[in-house]
């Protein structure tokens, strides 16, 4: 009896705690949406209002009309999809090379790669831009995609997962005359699909939100991406917060959908690190 009550209290407390956590996490999103429906005066009003006194759905139309968001959306989608596929492909191959294959200087090369993680990305922008412009890639989609498809952090992450696969599995496959290529795609990849999905979604979010690099390498509207459109609402003399929030809401919706679709994969990718197979 006493045990039952205690269990119930625990359950209730757990749920209250989780609900509080969920609310804290959700609040910025809700606030963004509510702000996007207020007028400019109400946003800076003191004390602030939670719900808009007048619901301004027209903010979305105004925000949409401020920049060619349709074109930006297509570009962002293209860059994100192609960029993520290439990144995942290269990450898988490289991680396999550094975890399973043995070749002279492997660990030294890997250490050098790891060392590059110490250099902040901002420092590379100008040198990368010089390289890209020498390749004649300024204002092309290539410039948006190729400089970022080799990501040392993802390679490191996936290598750790690959290294946990038992050697015996590899040698057994070898005995059965299975090539490295086949072993990688038939055994390694399916067994680490959670880790790979995590990498894919991290990379997709990164591509989707990238701002400074796309701004620097593109000039024409036909090559630009969504994040650049957000700057339209900020000027030296003020910011149209209601339009900025409306455009931001449009910007994050696809990422939320992607997250909901891959939810299970991500959670097990993050939590599970044991061996399988």
């Amino acid at each position, binding site marked *: 009896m006493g045990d039952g009550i205690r269990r119930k209290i625990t359950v209730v407390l757990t749920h209250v705690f989780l609900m509080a956590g969920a609310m804290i996490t959700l609040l910025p999103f809700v606030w963004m949406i509510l702000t996007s429906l207020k*007028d*400019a*005066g109400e*946003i*800076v*009003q*003191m004390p602030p209002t939670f719900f808009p006194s007048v619901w301004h759905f027209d903010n979305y139309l105004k925000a949409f009309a*401020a920049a060619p968001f349709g074109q930006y959306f297509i570009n962002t989608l293209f860059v994100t999809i192609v960029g993520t596929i290439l990144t995942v492909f290269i990450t898988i191959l490289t991680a396999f090379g550094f975890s399973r294959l043995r070749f002279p200087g492997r660990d030294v090369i890997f250490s050098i790669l790891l060392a590059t993680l110490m250099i902040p990305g901002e420092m590379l*922008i*100008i*040198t990368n*831009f*010089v390289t*890209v*412009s*020498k390749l004649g890639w*300024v204002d092309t989609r290539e410039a948006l995609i190729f400089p970022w498809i080799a990501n040392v952090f993802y390679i490191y992450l996936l290598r750790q997962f690959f290294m946990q696969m038992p050697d015996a599995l590899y040698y057994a496959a070898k005995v059965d005359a299975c090539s490295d290529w086949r072993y990688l795609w038939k055994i390694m990849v399916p067994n680490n699909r959670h880790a790979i999905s995590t990498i894919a979604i991290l990379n997709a979010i990164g591509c989707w939100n990238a701002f*400074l690099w796309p*701004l*620097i390498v593109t*000039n*024409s509207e036909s090559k630009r991406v969504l994040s*650049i459109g957000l*700057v*339209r*609402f*900020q*000027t*030296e*003399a*003020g*910011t*149209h917060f209601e339009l900025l929030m409306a455009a931001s809401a449009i910007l994050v919706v696809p990422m939320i959908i992607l997250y909901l679709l891959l939810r299970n994969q991500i959670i097990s990718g993050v939590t599970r690190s044991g061996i399988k197979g």
Partner: protein
Amino acid sequence: MKLKSILVSILGAGLFLALAVVAPVSAEPVTVEFWHAMSGGLQDALVALTDEFNATNGQDITVELVNQGGYGDLSKKLMASVAADTLPDMAQVYNNWITGYLDSVVALDDLVATNFDNYDDILESYRNEGAEYGPIYTIGFNKSIQIFFYNKTQFAELGLEVPTTWEELEAAGKVALEATGKPIVGYDDLFGLFQQYVQQNGSGFVVDGKIEFNSPEGLEALTFILNLYKNGYARLAGEDVYLSGPFGNGDVLAYVGSSAGAAYIQPKDFEYGAAPLPKGPVKGSVPQAGTNLALFAQDAAKQTAAWEYIKFLTSADATVEWAIATGYLPVRTSGFESATYQAFMEENEVAQAAYAQVGDQYFEPVFNNSYDIRSLISTEIETAILEEKTPEDAMNTIVEKVQALLDN
């Protein structure tokens, strides 16, 4: 391979003949790339002017506008382009952006001397800014000035006049605070506030890389500023960043901000007015802001074409059209005096307030680390206000930190 090159030369010759037949007199078409940071309504106005130029220049010049985000983004992008040798033909710039790459900016003295309509007609403080580094490197374009925006309705209720001096500002602040419990004024730009008050009190600010604001007049100015806040006559922008928001909601009775910010004021149940800034004991001194046009094109044809466009943008007609559409100021005296702008001014208090004080405006000179010093002084003044430091303490800290940056 061979066949291909023969084909190419035949095609080329054919194309050349065709062009020669179709357009025997007109010059080669030239495209000018112009990087700017104008968004929203400002961008619409720039596009309209540029379309007008493209349609009417009669020399087959096409200007391509490229929006590069905000000023910070544009500045970064220009810097990267200098390194990669991919600068556009022209861009909007602030003087402190181009110090690192003056070699890449075309000096305009010859063009101004031989092919420009009455350069002396451009406002003097803009000419001074353009020639800050010796040669003329830039021409003023989207220029704004600080304005005293006030709540006309509430000023009338309280029987307040617009303050024209420091003493009047302080006296009005007292009346307003006692009657409403609200501060009378706020400043968007604390660095500009400090610099203008120091100068209004007759002291230099930073001259030839040397601190001059630590004079008795400078300290007096700082004391006045800190007292405004301490007594509750002034408030900080704080989380709101710009005071146009709190002002529109009636939380502050007036604020000093850029003339370009007028579009962001949404007065709630009151009418707002615009006036010149209060003047100091010695003189008026009002910060100007806004970017200038710089020419980067090295190719002669592009240079000429871009110059035609710059001449167009700064012509009396275009500068007036631009000013009316955006709230920036005409860059020419003749623009201010034109019938169109005078008619506009009659209806527009912001323009009147701007015109009344253009003679007092100054540009912020660039010195070693001036960008960092700007944000440092803003932060230090905010800290002094929040921590209620004595003016002497605040001054000592500012001098020490600014000196370190100047020597750096």
